């Protein structure tokens, strides 16, 4: 088998939404705004291809901007977990 599989940018695909890593300040601001602990956000595995692609580490918060049938575009946040 071809070990050197060509790396592809998964975000090029139409159905893969944009993922961004939140800075520490941004993350704190967000948690304060929502008045929650990070664990209360939806989770994303650190092994998730999108998380891997942006280099997210457990404990980070990922901002995902995706299309929405109701709101046009919507922003969601996910807390990166181990495993």
């Amino acid at each position: 088998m071809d070990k050197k599989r060509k790396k592809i940018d998964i975000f090029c695909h139409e159905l893969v939404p944009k993922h961004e890593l939140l800075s520490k300040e941004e993350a704190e601001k967000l948690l304060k705004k929502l008045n929650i602990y990070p664990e209360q956000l939806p989770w994303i595995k650190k092994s998730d291809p999108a998380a891997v692609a942006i280099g997210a580490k457990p404990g980070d918060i990922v901002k995902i901007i995706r299309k929405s049938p109701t709101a046009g575009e919507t922003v969601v946040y996910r807390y990166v977990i181990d495993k």
Partner: protein
Amino acid sequence: MSLYRPPKKIGAIRFGLLSPETIRKMSVTRIITPDTYSEDGLPIDSGLMDGRLGTIEPGQRCKTCGNRIGECPGHFGHIELARPVIHVGFAKVIYKILRATCRKCSRILLSDEELEDFKKRMDEYEKKWKGLSEEISDELLKKASRVSKCPHCGESQFKIKFEKPTTYYEETKEGLRRLTPIEIRDRLERITDEDARLLGINPKDARPEWMVLTVLPVPPVTVRPSITLESGVRSEDDLTHKLVDIIRINQRLRENIEAGAPQLIIEDLWELLQYHVITYFDNEVSGVPPARHRSGRALRTLSQRLKGKEGRFRSNLSGKRVDFSARTVISPDPNLSINEVGVPIDIAKILTIPERVTEWNIEELKELVIKGPDQYPGANYIIRLDGRRIDLRYVRDRKTIAESLEPGFIVERHLKDGDIVLFNRQPSLHRMSIMAHEVRVLPYRTFRLHLCVCPPYNADFDGDEMNLHVPQSEEARAEARVLMRVQEQVLSPRYGGPIVGAIQDYISSAFLFTSKNNLLTKEEVCQLLSVADYKGDLPEPAVKEPQPLWTGKQIFSLFLPKGLNISLRASVCRKCPGGCLKEKCPYDAYVAVRDGQLITGVIDERSIGAFQPDSILHRIIKDFGTDAAREFLDKIGKLLIEFISRKGFTMGLDDVEIPKVATIRIQEILKEAEEKVDKLIESYRRGELQRLPGRTLEETLEMQIMKVLAEARDKAGDIASEHLGLENHAVIMAETGARGSILNLAQMAACVGQQSVRGERINRGYRNRTLPHFKVGDLSAKARGFVASNYRTGLDPIEFFFHAMGGREGLVDTAVRTSTSGYMQRRLVNALQDLKVEYDGTVRDASSRIIQIIYGEDGVDPAKSDHGKAVNIDIIIEKVLSESEQT
């Protein structure tokens, strides 16, 4: 601030078997005697009602824990069985294990290498997918059962035969040899722990030999209480009866063994003991005659207590029953408000509302107490300051007790007009399946409801029953009134539009009433308006000479709120080619309301019907509030019913009769079509038919035939409708959306058309033909389920048969659909039930984890939206334009 941790989850639940030692350890006494009570009525020691097993009599203290009834949980006893017996529940498992293990050394009948291999796979599976290792055990059991010589000790194996419920044989060369439970237990005992694990039994939780019982636990008396009948005769629970049988036979068996009785007798008794233990666990085992009560009724033993609709699980654990509720048949009452429910007086006298006595209502409540529980309006109970409850049924002098009433007491008074109650119809699939109504106490025995609330409940009056619940606290009543009242539920969150609204005759009537040709005399107007509770002035009559006449539109407008502006196309709109002429529509199908005046257009389903978004009804609710909408529906409803009752609106055979010429034309068309079909078949037979791309020749033929016949049916329908005008009641109902469709009418008047099963013409039945009346391979229209007759003239027997086939499919489809969608709904509800929109707009689950940051990602409440959108620009433009027109 403590750190948030997601809540703990249940990782696993382990089930195991009780070992004989455990059974003995949890037992408080060994039960020896089959008797329950001695002659003086006291429980016999070591009997089935031994005082140590718990207490069921009030006042008595438990001999084990010292608690009284209610606090004492009950305690197990045990029976030492004279000979082991098979546990029916595990008979199949025992069979599987016997087949897979050696008769001599009890090892699994696979070589060490094979076992090692299985073990490795099992370890791997257990690590990765917990619970999936079961499948490996199944594979192992299957593989081992095929081996005929033990790879460990070399013993040759016999085939094991299992005879339901609990008999096992070995098929030796000399013939069948029965295995006794003792032998079986021996074999199971010798299975090593490692082997047990491979067989699918976790030795930590259960050993195989525990499936053969040597000790039987005796459940506490609290789960099998004896009841004393009114005559003073004590009646024992079915379980106790069964245990008595077991102990009696057990005792006899032991005595016979000890006395050295012949083997045959011992075996018979042993078999009998096995029977009693089987039926003690499950009295519905196939092949075992159920144990019966003296009266002939089958006993309800352990399994029957749990199983089925009436079992512990479905009835007691998942089932919910409540007080302060009522259920009866529903019937319609157009004179009620949509907010009301008619409650039979007999029900109103049973359901109560607790009312606290105050200085201000004390006189009123005294009256109710004096009336008592049998006269309406009265009261059933008084709760005094010390919490004592007085049942007014047993109070001889209610006057005295009424006088003793003082502020702070609670009187449970009968339901009365205006009380708020919850009304429900199953299946409760959406929010509007339970709504709050105001009570109207009425004579007779049915719940009455307004016809406009039938759609949200999906109710009709062919025998439907509904439930009613009476909220018991002030808070509950306030919530019900503010949030759940019908008028607050008119707009459905399913789609932005009203779900409560006019149906059937209301719609036919509205159409007739607002038609251009409907002119009313002053007398008629006054009568209609008085029925509709109209209080106000009459408008200027539209026609003044020779006598004043009012149009239906004028009268209808009296009930529209001032300032209402809307235009829409009615259901009767013909979708005129070349664009709508709007106000100049020749069919009067363009509804225009300006400042609450119906200028043009007929009112029909589109304007006031249920399920109609952007209708007049919808605009009234959105722009003028729920009170206005309720008033509109109540008043216009009464008026329309009165109008159509006076006018008379019927449908009969005459309504689907068409002139002779039309019938002949239809027959010609159908004949032509059938000939065309014959020609198609002919060309197919000759091989001249052109195949359509991607289809076989046969499929092509079928498609073309179906097309020809469908066209013919449509044409026949068109001819029929040419002769059925808008003066025809059936046509009015179809066109206005009140009931039925033009297709239904065409089927009644012209031609029923092709019947189908699985989307194809009917092709099942006999070999290459549908019925023996046809030649083999007949593909003609008639032979494949085309019904050329109409419902009015009737179907011939062959057509009738095909029609029944098609109809059957429809019924099966709906049955299957409801069950699958019901299951889907259940799964969805279970997954979403505790999601909630919090005050900050986020959607969170029960442990306040965020699901959505804004509800629906746009924060729009669909019930308050316009068809799902937050704003509807068209309506705003329309509103602004018509307002500027008026000024």
